[in-house]
């Protein structure tokens, strides 16, 4: 009797043990790489070419940040990345949100619009980027110091994304809300501006944050279109390619800041209820 009771207890603890081991492994695999980037960023460049590498840094210093600041004019790259991401996001919302609304309200347009958006999200960026550079050169937008060509390229990602999000969130909104405003004397556009836009502020906020990240993280277009005025992702690639892991990690740490902030705030807000606005309990 005693042994069977003990066996039962063992049978109960083994799954718990496996579960604990699994969760620990998950934490190590997913979080340790970020710590490695931080570790590399905060120790001198000489430590990234030492052999064998030490997991714990020997010296803590900001020398990577300082040398990036002095030799690479760090701020220019950071501001270019920010500017391109903000520009892409604003234009995507400005054009994409009304388009998503029209698709949600007008049946005949919805399938055309969602399918075009889906198809253009399927295109490999490189297939568009290569002929696009040939088009941008005569327009003087290739390698533009303000990244205008890159903003155009990023719109091919941001716009379909915003259209699909706005369509998905507005299609569930009862049209009676707008119709009521129209009965009270609003034009169709007036109802959109006074009723739909305020009611869908949450969805627009989510679309804004995600579209920002889409451009902030983008690598392929940036690599092909900005040859010398680089945004941060291709710059990280070049530093890593030339073995300057400290500089690459420092830039990566800077890139993480808005990403962590945005993901954190999206987790905090209840995304689902934001997307459906105030019209669903």
């Amino acid at each position, binding site marked *: 009797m005693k042994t069977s009771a003990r066996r039962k207890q063992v049978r109960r603890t083994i799954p718990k043990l496996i579960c604990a081991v699994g969760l620990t492994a998950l934490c190590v*695999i*997913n979080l340790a790489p*970020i710590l490695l980037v931080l570790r590399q960023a905060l120790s001198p460049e000489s430590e990234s070419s030492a052999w064998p590498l030490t997991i714990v840094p020997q010296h803590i210093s900001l020398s990577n940040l300082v040398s990036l600041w002095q030799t690479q004019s760090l701020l220019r790259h950071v501001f270019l990345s920010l500017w391109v991401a903000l520009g892409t996001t604003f234009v995507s919302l400005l054009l994409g949100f009304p*388009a998503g609304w029209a698709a949600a309200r*007008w049946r005949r347009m919805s399938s055309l619009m969602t399918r075009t958006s889906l198809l253009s999200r399927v295109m490999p960026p*490189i*297939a*568009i980027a290569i002929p696009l550079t040939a*088009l941008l050169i005569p327009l003087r937008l290739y390698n533009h110091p303000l990244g205008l060509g890159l903003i155009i390229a990023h719109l091919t990602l941001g716009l379909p994304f915003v259209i699909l999000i706005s369509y998905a969130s507005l299609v569930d909104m009862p049209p009676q809300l707008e119709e009521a405003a129209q009965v009270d004397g609003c034009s169709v556009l007036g109802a959109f501006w006074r009723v739909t836009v305020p009611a869908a502020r949450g969805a627009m906020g989510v679309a804004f944050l995600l579209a920002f990240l889409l451009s902030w993280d983008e690598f392929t277009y940036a690599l092909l279109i900005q040859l010398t005025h680089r945004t941060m992702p291709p710059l990280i690639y070049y530093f890593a390619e030339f073995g300057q892991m400290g500089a690459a990690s420092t830039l990566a740490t800077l890139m993480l800041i808005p990403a962590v902030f945005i993901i954190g705030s999206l987790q905090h807000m209840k995304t689902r209820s934001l997307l459906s606005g105030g019209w669903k309990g």
Partner: protein
Amino acid sequence: MTYTRRRTWTYGLVALPAMVFLALQAWPLSRAAVSVIIGPGGHLTLAHIRRVFTDSLFLRGLSYNLFIPLVSVALEAAIGLAMALWFYYLRRGKSLWRTIAIVPFALPEIVYLLTAKLIFRQHGYLNSILYRLGGAAAAVGWFQPQSILSAGVIILVDAWRVTPVVFLIVLMALEQMPDSYLEAARVDSASRWQIICLIQIPLAVPALLVALALRAVDAFRIFATPFVLMGVEGMPVLTSVAYHYKMEANDAVAANVAALTLALALFAATTATLLAAGRRGGGR
């Protein structure tokens, strides 16, 4: 103008700029297509296509571009499903663990790849640990060009980053399943494994298929992972071969051939899927 007509006009006008921009994407694509089939004398020619399709770099890229995505998506399906089932039965701290599980996908791609490079490169962290444990002979060439091992590492790195997408979609499907299904099975004294294998997995298949369809598109357009970790020569795929033709060999036409091969294949596959889904949805 009647009310309905005015409304239709408004919708059309409001959507016009976005539609024009989306349509404009066809412009660079069609220019690329024209450059591919027109020879120097202005005649139609297959010479460009023939030239690229006999290039050994392109052919290697083509085979990797089939092999890597297929294995990667299969791996994502297996790990994603297993993790979703595991998390479904987690009791405590579910939301915290879920947040940790989706970290790789939430990171910017280039940051994630930098971490992979820090770990797997010749003088990286993994080899440092192996060196300390077993001496110089224990270090492994993870990114040795043309090796099965390096293909395995690339697939693992690629799959691990996007598995959270599959995991989240399947987990959501599992959580939305009515409890009554599971209770009915329990009443009939089904074991937990029977419930998982006979009820939960079959009912999660539609969600899994949707997730895999989404993932397959991205998997076939794979670019940054092999490009950043191993370079064009080390592990060519169609996109990085196109990059090489354009930026390093300065041959835009060859680059267009390589990129359009991939674009056409994806376009055809997506259109077929949309049509099939439309037909099954009763022409909605």
